[in-house]
């Protein structure tokens, strides 16, 4: 597998000679790959192989884990220019505003829908109430949630169903208009119907950003993914 072959469509993310270890235990090594923009890339493979960890190398979220080590580079395409997310002048918090992430289990903060949606904007320094409201509505619409919650914005987010909570978390990640959205098995805690809605939603998000999704379900991957990678025995390969 050569690098040229992979970068054929416009790429958004490039992993270059990426290696990851906890203490002396190597999770993966020599990972080189390119993920296309405005498309869904799926990473699949047996569990416990470091698929989630691979995702967190893109938004640097692994750095909070003690004893973890990374080598190599992760490059992000910004208007045609490649930028290493591990460059010394990159602030991880700012990076994560551009590279959103949604987790396996929905993780709404213990507050209302409205406040959950406003949270990322507020920490990014947005104080304008009108802008907050606009962005909230826009993100909830994007996440197929607006019609269901428009009259219940001030209710505790934890009172909604699992599927609604997960769409809320996707909306919350979208509110900052990220360039990349990382999804760590986003439907594995949901029933088939709720998962179906999320799949439809993800397909519609392709027009806005690059999606990188870890998934265990072969059918889901086949239905959704534009490019499929398999992480196995510490190596990543294109399927």
């Amino acid at each position, binding site marked *: 597998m050569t690098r040229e072959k992979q970068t054929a469509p416009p790429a958004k993310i490039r992993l270059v000679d990426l290696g990851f270890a906890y203490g002396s235990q190597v999770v993966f090594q020599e990972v080189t790959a390119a993920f296309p923009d405005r498309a869904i890339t799926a990473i699949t493979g047996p569990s416990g192989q470091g698929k989630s960890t691979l995702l967190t190398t893109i*938004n640097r*979220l692994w750095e*909070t884990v*003690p004893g973890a080590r990374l080598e190599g580079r992760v490059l992000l395409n910004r208007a045609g220019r490649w930028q290493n997310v591990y460059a010394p002048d990159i602030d*991880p*918090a*700012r990076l*994560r*505003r551009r590279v*959103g*992430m949604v*987790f396996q*289990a929905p*993780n709404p*903060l*213990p*507050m209302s829908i*409205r*406040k959950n949606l*406003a*949270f*990322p904007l*507020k*920490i*990014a320094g947005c104080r304008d*109430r009108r802008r*907050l409201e606009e962005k909230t509505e826009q993100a909830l619409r994007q996440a197929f949630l607006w019609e269901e919650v428009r009259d219940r914005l001030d209710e505790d987010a934890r009172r909604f169903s699992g599927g609604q909570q997960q769409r809320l978390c996707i909306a*919350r*990640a979208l509110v*900052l208009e990220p360039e990349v959205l990382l999804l760590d098995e986003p439907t594995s805690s949901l029933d088939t119907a709720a998962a179906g809605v999320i799949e439809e939603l993800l397909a519609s998000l392709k027009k806005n950003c690059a999606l990188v999704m870890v998934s265990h379900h072969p059918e889901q991957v086949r239905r959704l993914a534009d490019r499929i990678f398999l992480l196995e025995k510490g190596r990543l390969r294109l399927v």
Partner: protein
Amino acid sequence: MKEKGLDRLLVFYAWTAALVLLLAVLAVFGFLLQRGLPVLNLKLIFGNADPLAALGGRQPVFDGLYPAIVGTLMLVVLAVTLAVPVGLGAGIYLAEYSRGRQRALLGLFFDILAGTPSIIVGLFGLTITIFLHRCLSAQIQPCLLISALSLAFLVLPYLARTTQAALEEIEPAVRLTAPALGASRRQNLFLVLLPQALPGIGSGILLAIGRCAEDTAVIMLTGAVAAAGLPRSLLDHYEALPFSIYYYSSQYANPEELQRGYGAALILLATCALLFILAFVLRQLLTRSRGIAAGWRP
């Protein structure tokens, strides 16, 4: 058959133990109420002074418990105010910033401090007072401020450890939520982690309040006296309820004085209950608004 018998025995044993505890509490309260209630009146608190005038500070109270009540309240508020910022900070450091061996070592130190008998802490306060008296100013003597500082030392480890435990209990998923949305470490701490940990931290403060109100060994070495009236400043002697109880019960000259000791015990219990209720209400209010930092309303 034998299994069943053992099961029954265990249940019987557990019941008996619970019953003994209940009886012990009831006996103590009953005894205190029986001895203390007859003397529990305004005269016990304000002596011969007019209650309203005393409360307004226009008339000093010489033969009542009023100065001791005020002394204890001041002591608790002062000690907890001094200890909370340090204890919270230490707990946050232990949970969020220290790693590996350093964390274990610091934790050990806090546990040693928590295990230090209060008489030793009192002795430490006294030593500091003598040192300051000799080296800084002859004006410095055992006083309210020194007592409060010593008590703050006594409760610091509780505060640090409960804060640490409350923060470490937070699930990894919750812990990563805000950073994944672009929050800095500080934002995550103040907007998510500390609000989540508030009930636990509140329990620590509750414990600290109780400890400050009841401790006698520390204050008898660092500034509590039998008759001082209301303290005029933080550098003045003061009276406190636990010390009054100790004093009345060990030095009484007649049955009436001993009776006053029981009255003081009841008042101390009531004061502690009041402080607990206050802290509890505060905790409920904070818990209700948790997840939302102050002044942070969209």
